[in-house]
């Protein structure tokens, strides 16, 4: 608009004067955090604990369909938390199947989700030492952030040190007509007021599979469309077991398919056209909802990073950081999903943010260790893992130097309910040398998240196969099967667990 260049000039002028002051006076804040998600808040809270003056800027740009939310970032609003609640709802749905109850009518619980989460949010900024601004921040010089409220009001903030933790948002495909107009993303799914009905989820990431999983679980007709392999970056044997189970669970899969266009029909349904790259044919079907889960991208453009010289990866747009989370500008740091090459996980962002604050203000030199980060995919049958995938271990050490112990087991709760446990599987990748250090552990089954956490601790401590075997099992649990692993892949023996 015509007014904005003028406003810009005005702001720039003010900045300049501010900067002039800043040279003589100490900046207003010791630490300024842009982004009130998991990583940013953890860093801010930790810094405040050292008695520092801290400010957090948070602003949520509404998603294309118009969804917006408050402080807390992806995890609590449109990520882990609502996802896990929906996963649990879906598990209850399948529990109903176990209980042989035929009719189940599923209602969405997004509203109750979000209201109870506000309670949780209250504990995020417990002390008044952290000042919160609901503004969109961008750099005007290396120590100055210009914040704009929704109404266009401007705030200028100066700080000694600045942490960028603005995370990422779901991507929309560029070359699919109608994608943006008619499609939604995970940002919107959890805030829908009504059931999405028959849903097409495009993508094969964990987000896609998790969403498709719980939608199936609450009784919706759900289809996943994937271009190539599921769960890229994860162990592929496990990934295919995860999708195999989902297929038997009722999720439909359109493999090797690329969407080409989305159109709205008169019935208000969405007609999706895609190309099957296997057969080369064009296919079409109609859905009530189309959800894109084709990856996430950071929103670095609005930050005006070029002005201050913070380097980003031109391909991903993510900020390049070193082991200390420092960017190319010495006093500017970045944590969480926005950083290049880091896992996009809440706990890593939190840990990195905390450690960063400790290094900045607490005379610590401890670096964040990104090795052996455990994670769990909350698909209908959960998949938890820590350390290297089998492929990665082969690549790093060679197949002759690793030993893979594996087992197909049957959880007790599956046995009596006569549920198929074909995909309940675990494997442990160890070095083959005498000590047999554990490189990776992969577990598919109920409660995988709760199972893998403790093992992650053990593996972090450098656990070896004999050490694991020395631990007495807990009977009857699924986790105990890990301490009983003894069939190697190399032996070619049947890995099905039979009795105690």
């Amino acid at each position, binding site marked *: 608009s015509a007014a904005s260049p003028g406003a810009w000039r005005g702001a720039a002028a003010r900045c300049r004067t501010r900067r002039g002051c800043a040279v003589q006076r100490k900046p207003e804040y010791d630490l300024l955090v842009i982004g009130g998600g998991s990583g940013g808040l953890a860093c801010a809270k930790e810094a405040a604990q050292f008695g520092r003056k801290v400010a957090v800027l948070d602003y949520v740009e509404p998603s294309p369909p118009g969804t917006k939310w408050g402080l807390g970032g992806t995890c609590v609003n449109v990520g882990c938390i609502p996802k896990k609640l929906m996963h649990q709802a879906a598990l209850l749905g399948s529990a109903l199947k176990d209980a042989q109850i035929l009719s189940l009518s599923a209602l969405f619980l997004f509203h109750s989700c979000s209201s109870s989460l506000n309670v949780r949010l209250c504990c995020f900024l417990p002390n008044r030492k952290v000042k919160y601004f609901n503004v969109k921040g961008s750099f005007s010089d290396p120590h100055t952030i210009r914040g704009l409220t929704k109404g266009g009001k401007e705030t200028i903030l100066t700080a000694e040190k600045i942490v960028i933790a603005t995370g990422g948002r779901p991507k929309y495909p560029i070359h699919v007509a109608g994608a943006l107009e008619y499609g939604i993303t995970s940002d919107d799914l959890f805030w829908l007021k009504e059931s999405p009905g028959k849903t097409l989820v495009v993508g094969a990431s964990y987000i896609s599979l998790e969403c498709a999983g719980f939608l199936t679980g609450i009784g919706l007709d759900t289809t996943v469309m994937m271009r190539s392999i599921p769960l890229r970056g994860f162990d592929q044997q496990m990934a295919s077991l995860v999708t195999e189970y989902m297929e038997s669970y009722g999720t439909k899969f359109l493999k090797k398919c690329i969407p080409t266009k989305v159109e709205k029909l008169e019935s208000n349904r969405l007609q999706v056209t895609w190309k099957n790259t296997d057969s080369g044919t064009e296919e079409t079907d109609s859905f009530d909802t189309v959800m894109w889960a084709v990856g996430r991208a950071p929103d670095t453009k609005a930050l005006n990073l070029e002005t201050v010289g913070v380097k980003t990866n031109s391909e991903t747009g993510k900020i390049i950081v070193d082991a200390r989370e420092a960017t190319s500008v010495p006093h500017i740091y970045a944590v969480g999903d926005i950083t290049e090459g880091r896992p996009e996980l809440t706990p890593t962002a939190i*840990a990195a943010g905390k450690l960063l604050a400790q290094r900045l203000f607490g005379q610590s030199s401890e670096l964040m260790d990104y090795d052996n980060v455990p994670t*769990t995919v909350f698909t209908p049958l959960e998949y938890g893992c820590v350390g290297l995938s089998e492929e990665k271990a082969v690549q790093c050490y060679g197949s002759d130097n690793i030993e893979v112990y594996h087992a197909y087991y049957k959880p007790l709760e599956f046995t009596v309910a006569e549920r198929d446990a074909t995909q309940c599987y675990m494997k442990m990748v160890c070095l083959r040398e005498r000590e047999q250090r554990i490189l990776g552990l992969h577990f598919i089954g109920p409660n995988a998240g709760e199972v893998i*956490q403790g093992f992650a601790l*053990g593996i972090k401590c450098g656990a070896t196969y004999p050490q694991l075997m020395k631990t007495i099992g807990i009977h009857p649990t699924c986790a105990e099967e*890990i301490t009983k692993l003894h069939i190697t892949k190399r032996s070619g023996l049947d890995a099905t667990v039979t*009795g105690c």
Partner: protein
Amino acid sequence: MSPPLLPSQLFLCYFTLFVVTLFFWGPDKVRRGLWDMLMYRSPAWSSQGVPAGPKKPPSELLGLQITLLCLGAVLSRAMAAAAYELLVLGGGSGGLAGARRAAELGARVALVEPHRLGGTCVNVGCVPKKVMWNAAVHAEFIHDHPDYGFETSGVRFNWRTIKEKRDAYVRRLNEIYENNLNKARIDIIHGYGKFTADPEPTIEVNGKKYTAPHILIATGGFPSVPPDSEVPGASLGITSDGFFELEELPRRSVIVGAGYIAVEIAGILSTLGSKSSLLIRRDKVLRTFDSLISTNCTQELENTGVEVWKHSRVQAVTKSPSGLLEVTVMSSAPGHKPTMEVIRDVDCLLWAVGREPNSKDLCLDRVGVEVDARGHVVVDKFQNTSRKGVYAVGDVCGRALLTPVAIAAGRKLAIRLFGGQRDAHLDYSNIPTVVFSHPPIGTVGLTEDEAIFAHGKDNVKIYTTSFTPLYHAVTQRKVKCVMKLVCAGKEEKVVGLHMQGLGCDEMLQGFAVAIKMGATKADFDNTVAIHPTSAEELVTMR
């Protein structure tokens, strides 16, 4: 009596017998042919019409001797190969594990079991218990269904359905165990084995005697019931064994005991809809557990609707004409006058007041195997009893009455005896345990009190947390999760972990590995959390 022979050995024996029979009573022609062969001549039946070659000096005696020698050699070799090296008394977790591992290491093993294979764990313990616990968990979840958006009106629970399915599963396991033994070429001797007074340790089963250089006692235990002389009418009650025979869900249950079995059964019965009372002698259940757990568990039992009668003892039990029981209970809280009350219309009185070892009828005195005052077989850390060549594992020893402990001890013993690892023995420290209460309890290592006793109050640091798991964020029913880390020394080595809450059952195993390895609080802190789980709270404690 010697053990049966392998098929190949049997074949050799029968073949030799067959040849000998032919030699003495076969047709003349065959007899003559055999005789010729024995005399190193070409047999008569193949040399018809052809003049016999030069005759060797006939020495009939020598031939006969060679025949007998061959026969003897074959038989004795067969016998030697078939003699048992290990006899196992008891086909439960410990016995089966020891037998199978020994067989894998090449030993000839026989296993004596009077009942179904699998022992307590499979038939009347962990396995059917967990199945019932799962049923109870379903019942709990049904309460949460409306909160999660599911309409579930008119859900009815049918005890018979789950009982039938459970029994079928247990039978399947029994078969699997039998197949496993057969596959491992372990002989199953059905019957009750007792020691005899023979000079070498010998077992008698159904009148037949068996012996082996190594004998393993793995006979387990059984639930105790107070004698009628102590509590009149006590025998009208059942035990955990009887719990698994119940054909219907009792309407009114009284469970006596404060141990984990009492807690688990009270939880299952109450959650599935039986009005349940738990009678405990003091003010808390699970008193050997960490105080956090015993306090919280008592609280949770009351929250889930179990009537906990504290400071209470059963005085008498009578059967009313209707067939239901009347349980007279004396409650005497400290500082209060004892009161006497009667619980009426009880259709299930269940004693869970401890377990006793199955050692009395083994005639252990005949071989000089020492037992303690309560009848537990006394063993050293290598599972050796006081008699050389006789060992014991599992519940019969009275230490850590857990399936995986018995299994591990049985395997270690087999490895020591037949695997050449002379030092193999089970480390009884840091054994993780789960109590399938509602919610489940997980515990490993020292309690806070034990740690203070062992390390001194100043050297023990405690971390605790209490939170509502995410699952309950949207439910009206709130069940909290409590956790405690017990750390010792300057380096804050984690020596104990105690928790109760949703998911704690599956959570514990991995942490047990780390604690066994000597993980410190700093190691816990350095582990990245898995979000959102309850387990992550353990690595983010402050």
